[in-house]
């Protein structure tokens, strides 16, 4: 789970990092008041989870209260779903550096990354100038030791009094990483001020989803998601991604769903949504299909090849879901794995035409999504349930 900048900075501040003075506001009136308190110039930072906020014009400098009001009005009205703005003092910057803690899977250690050129995206830097990134690894059981920070400071050319402050910042960020079960704790840029202080200019904190039971303080609300359906799927624990194409995917397994997505694109089709209802979710057919139906897809494509997720139980769930929701579009089913014979029987009894080959199922779904399938449902070739498949 990704946190908003203002939340990350709250966590950073509690861990002893310095962040700019600031205030979170939810309307333009609040923005101008906060700006007046903080002094000018000040920075208005839209709290959205997307990257590239600067380029998108979501971070603006205000010179007076009226300006802050007008900028805030425009930001709240932008198409990016801005619900909160962080109004911050402008910092007198001498230099910007990059600092983060993340996970290195191969060594199974925490990986500290630092770079003397802050503000740039680290992925971009890794591609263009990998030599400029300084790395330091920490074994979780051994923990942080000051030499880790000294190695980074030397690499960055940070010396004297500043190197002590830098070491403290590194230790604090590592503490955040550990205590929050983070995938990533990042400060980019980390400002070095003209008076020789270190201030976190931005804050990214991404918490491991598998550790959320230890971090109930972070309940993801609607504003964490791009769409209502993304939000509802997340509450159900159903992996879901919103697209705007024709075919709703209702598949089991991350790898298989991703592969079905590839095969659809290869076959010239488009995807309305990516949805996994396998593994622990295999009894959630109704909820999964409801999410699909609300996209008004031209076809719902169900592909599974399960082990724990039993095919017979999924088939029953799907038939019940169809009876309850009566989707207007055709449904292509390809359910295999544990209990597959019984599953096929259940689906046939409900008037569906169960397939056993993924590519055949994808081909059929793409054909149905392109042909004017609604006007002339092809019985036998199509796979609409009994008594439906008429005009949408």
């Amino acid at each position, binding site marked *: 789970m990704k946190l908003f900048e203002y939340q990350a900075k709250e966590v950073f501040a509690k861990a002893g990092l310095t962040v700019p003075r600031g205030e979170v506001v939810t309307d333009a009136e609040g923005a101008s008041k906060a700006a007046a308190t903080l002094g000018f110039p000040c920075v208005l930072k839209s709290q959205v989870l997307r990257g590239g906020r600067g380029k998108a014009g979501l971070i603006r400098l205000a010179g007076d209260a009226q300006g802050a009001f007008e900028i805030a009005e425009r930001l709240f009205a932008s198409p990016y779903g801005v619900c909160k703005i962080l109004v911050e003092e402008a910092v007198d910057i001498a230099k910007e550096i990059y600092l983060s803690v993340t996970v290195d899977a191969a060594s199974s250690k925490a990986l500290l990354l630092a770079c003397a050129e802050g503000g740039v995206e680290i992925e971009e830097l890794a591609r263009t100038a*990998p030599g400029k990134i300084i790395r330091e690894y920490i074994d979780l059981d051994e923990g942080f030791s000051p030499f880790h920070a000294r190695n980074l400071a030397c690499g960055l050319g940070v010396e004297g009094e500043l190197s002590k402050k830098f070491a403290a910042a590194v230790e604090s960020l590592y503490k955040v990483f550990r205590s929050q079960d983070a995938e990533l704790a990042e400060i980019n840029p980390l400002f070095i001020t003209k008076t020789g202080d270190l201030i976190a200019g931005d804050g990214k904190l991404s918490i491991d989803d598998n550790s959320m039971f230890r971090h109930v303080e972070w309940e993801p609300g609607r504003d964490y998601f791009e769409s209502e359906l993304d939000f509802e799927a997340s509450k159900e624990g159903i992996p879901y991604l919103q697209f705007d194409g024709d075919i709703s995917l209702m598949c089991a397994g991350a790898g298989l769903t991703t592969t079905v997505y590839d095969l659809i694109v*290869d076959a010239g089709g488009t995807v309305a949504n990516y949805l996994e209802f396998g593994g622990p979710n295999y009894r959630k057919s109704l909820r999964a299909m409801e999410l699909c139906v609300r996209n008004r897809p031209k076809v719902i494509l169900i592909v599974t090849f399960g*082990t724990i997720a039993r095919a017979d139980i999924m088939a029953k769930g799907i038939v019940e879901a169809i009876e309850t929701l009566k989707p207007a579009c055709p449904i292509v089913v390809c359910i295999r794995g544990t209990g597959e014979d019984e599953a096929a029987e259940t689906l046939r009894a409900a008037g569906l035409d169960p397939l056993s080959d993924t*590519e055949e199922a994808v081909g059929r779904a793409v054909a149905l999504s392109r042909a004017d399938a609604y006007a002339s449902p092809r019985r036998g070739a199509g796979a609409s349930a009994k008594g439906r498949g008429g005009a949408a």
Partner: protein
Amino acid sequence: MSIFIDRNTRVIVQGVTGGEGSFWTRHMIEIGTKVVAGVTPGKEGLVVAADAHSAIPGFQGLSVYHTVRRAVAAHPADAAMLFVPPRFTKDAVYEALDAGIRKIVTIADGIPLHEAMQIRAAARSCGARVIGGNTSGVISPGQAMMGMFPYWIERVYKPGRVGVMTRSGSLTNEVTSMIVSGGFGVSSLIGVGGDPVPGTRFAELLPEFQADPDTDAVVIIGELGGTMEEEVADALASGFFTKPLVAFIGGRHAPAGKRMGHAGAIVSGGRGSALDKIAALRDAGALVAEKPRLVGECLRQAIASRNLESF
């Protein structure tokens, strides 16, 4: 032969009395795995799976013990199968390591990330191998399995001479069925799992497949995210793995910025897209199947070209 597990591997099961544990332990026994004892804290004295058909002569069920240490004292074992919830997995792995077990499989889906890192670090520090989590496990078809595979579906789990390594569950059934329909069978299938920090990585299993006389070729089932496939490419390029290698990589069309597939995609220095992986593997001499259906054909080509070279 096979890798990791065969008819002779003696296995204890941690979490043997739970729903999944008892169901799949029975299947592990029925396929031929030498399961020797069970562990569930607080349940010592129980005997489970007494009516299962075991390869062990005179089998009368599995005795359940409070701790791994007590189980292995009575029943020497080589491997531990964990049907333990994700939050308790680190503890269960540490317990098995402490009792001297050096092969561990955990199916747990949802192990906290930092604990997964600690598990891998602990295993490496004592030369043990942990497979998983978030996997179906390990199977040598026709011989033994640790985990949860519908091995009775013959069009997927046919014994043969192709080694398989995978990050997925359902996709593995899909691709392996194509290996079988291509006329091949499986020597050993290792599900390293879909987590960002799996206990064992693809490339670490290559030496075992290389050394296994009953594995002629290896198929890897990968996907976008992480760098495990690139590490396999590095192993091929270095000449350290010499058997034919075929790969299928999911996520070729995954749009940038969307977290598709398993939770494997973390900063990896510009590496990690499916297309990067495919290019790296091809450059290193692997054959990459664009679709699952083509895996059998790729295997035939890879093996045929290797045979030509040997003349």
